């Protein structure tokens, strides 16, 4: 091929990098069947954009289960350990922890007899341990999800398309990225048109 298919000449003559092609669909049914055909075509760098999660689209695209639950489990266990160390360390130990950064004095526990309870009264520590487990698990779920999704993303070439703005309202889009090995500007656009798209648009990066 003489010209790199992932570049096009813009009207100003300067070379623009092509991000990909988007195809607009009107109904869930249309995009669902189109997604299955796109998957069977062998594309890897492609996606379906929809205003709400379409159930069954994971299988139609071929999305594998996320590792997010494991991240949440690890965060939750960290929170639990932190809670135990905090409660037992401050209530039931009397040794110094010297040289913590920013601490003027060594940190030590505060063993203090309260109504005859043992210093290490684990049942009384459970509320705090539980709350820290939940807190860190929730952080893991939210920030883990954002991290895996590469969000926040301050620039996205797709948002330059006025049509694409309906992807958060009432339309469904299939995006095939130019970096996919099977991508060809004309052939891919034709292919998506053949799937019943109401419009097909090239997106510059």
């Amino acid at each position, binding site marked *: 091929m003489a010209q790199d298919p992932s570049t096009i000449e813009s009207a100003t003559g300067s070379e623009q990098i092509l991000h990909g092609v988007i195809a607009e669909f009107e109904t869930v049914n249309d995009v669902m069947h189109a997604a299955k055909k796109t998957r069977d075509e062998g594309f890897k760098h492609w996606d379906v954009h929809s205003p*709400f999660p379409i159930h069954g689209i994971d299988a139609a695209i071929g999305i594998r289960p996320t590792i997010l639950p494991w991240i949440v489990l690890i965060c939750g266990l960290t929170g639990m350990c932190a809670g135990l160390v905090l409660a037992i360390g401050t209530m039931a130990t009397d040794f110094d922890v010297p040289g913590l950064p920013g601490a003027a004095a060594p940190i030590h526990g505060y063993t203090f007899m309260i109504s005859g309870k043992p210093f290490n009264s684990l049942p009384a520590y459970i509320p705090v341990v539980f709350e820290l487990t939940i807190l860190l698990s929730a952080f893991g*779920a939210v920030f883990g999800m954002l991290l895996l999704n590469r969000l926040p993303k301050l620039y996205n070439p797709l948002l330059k398309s006025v049509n694409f703005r309906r992807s958060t309202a009432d339309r469904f889009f299939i995006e095939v990225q130019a970096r996919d090995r099977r991508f060809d500007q004309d052939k891919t656009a034709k292919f998506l048109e053949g799937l019943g798209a109401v419009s097909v648009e090239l997106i510059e990066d």
Partner: protein
Amino acid sequence: MATITTQHEMDRPLVDNTIDDPTQRAQLVLGGNDFTTVTDKVTGIAAGKPPIGWWIAFALALSLLTMLGALIGYLFTTGVGVWGNNQPVSWGFPIINFVFWVGIGHAGTLISAILFLFRQNWRTAINRFAEAMTIFAVMCAGLFPGIHVGRPWLAYWLAPVPNQMGMWPQFRSPLLWDVFAVGTYATVSLLFWYVGMVPDLATLRDRCKNKYGQMAYGLFSLGWTGSSRHWHRYEKAYLLLAALATPLVLSVHSVVSFDFAVAQLPGWHTTIFPPYFVAGAIYGGFAMVITLAVPARYILGLRDLITDRHIENCCKVMLGTGMIVAYAYSIEFFVAWYSGHHYEKYAFLNRALGPYQWAYGTMIFCNIIGPQILWFKWCRRNVFTIMFAAMCVNVGMWFERFVIVVTSLHRDFLPSSWAMFKPTWVDIGMLVGSFGLFFTFFLLFCKFLPVIAMAEIKTVMPQAHDIVHEPGEPYNPDEDQADYRPDHPITDREGR
């Protein structure tokens, strides 16, 4: 083609979705709305100019908030003696208000987390502003213990901060558990609310005509484009958050009840407190949801999305939790009698027949008698009877906390330490002012943020699962087991 039902022709909705027909699911979105009209309706509230009623309500709420700020300034410069708190009633209004507000928040988390896990699809229309209600109620709740500490500039002593005194907070104390429970609850509720809102903020970003609005919505929507790969992880994160928030919300009011139940005081020292407090919290919270939802669906023109069925379901939840509360009230008296404990028996007789019997009577009427009208279907469908029941519960639940705090404290073991409690004008001003704080934020939320979870409500519309399977297509169990259609027949599971 869909027709947009305007507010004028909606005096009686064409479809009555409160009828339970076991052969089909009740419609949750009425008026022939499709994805476009739902988006238009909800974004139209944020994009358009607010109605005059909004400005009047906002001005009122803001002046109450200003009054609250002035009273806090007065409190800080003068001291906690401006309140009616005394010995032995040392907790008074601040703790009553704290328990009242933190309880209100619980309905929001119940709707967003527990009803989500139970696949109650009707939650989608009301979960967004119920969650917003949670956040603002917890803000009001957090304020009161914060200013109650006496020297508020030392409030950071509540947190385990290493310090030159070598002292730590007491981890065996329910008051410290409260700090962690309410702090975690506020943080997780905020995350849950915000994560749920990100796709809708993206909708507002894509619809916004104003440059600053586009920048603000663009920043907070984090570059969301509705990618299916993102939705996949997003839904998993949302499910996990719901699963985490469920035990959390049950724990928060349990821990609040430990503030009382762990003490040795007759009237407080009861094991029924955690479930009783949680049920009461959800009861009071649903009353506030109804108080906000019923006017909002008229003023914001959302009667097709928050339908009569939603309001009726809220009434049913309120009735159910109200019966748990009624049971708890009676079992408290039974246990006081059955215990044979002199002080315990006296505490409860004094509660019902002593000098605060007017508060106890108000509580019983508002929580137990008034809301019983909701057993009748026509009462669950009439705006005035619904609002009457909700207002009863709003007042009754505040008085419940008044009864628990004041009547238990004012008669100590020794008659020599008995005293009556009288709130001062500062006490009452701060209670009223906290409603100003709540409604200021709530009205700002109604104006600038998506009041309905658009992305979620679209998933319960019939258009969202109108998928025709082609003949000869290999069976994929994942596609058929879409979990929002629990009644959909599963025909063939041999593919697995």
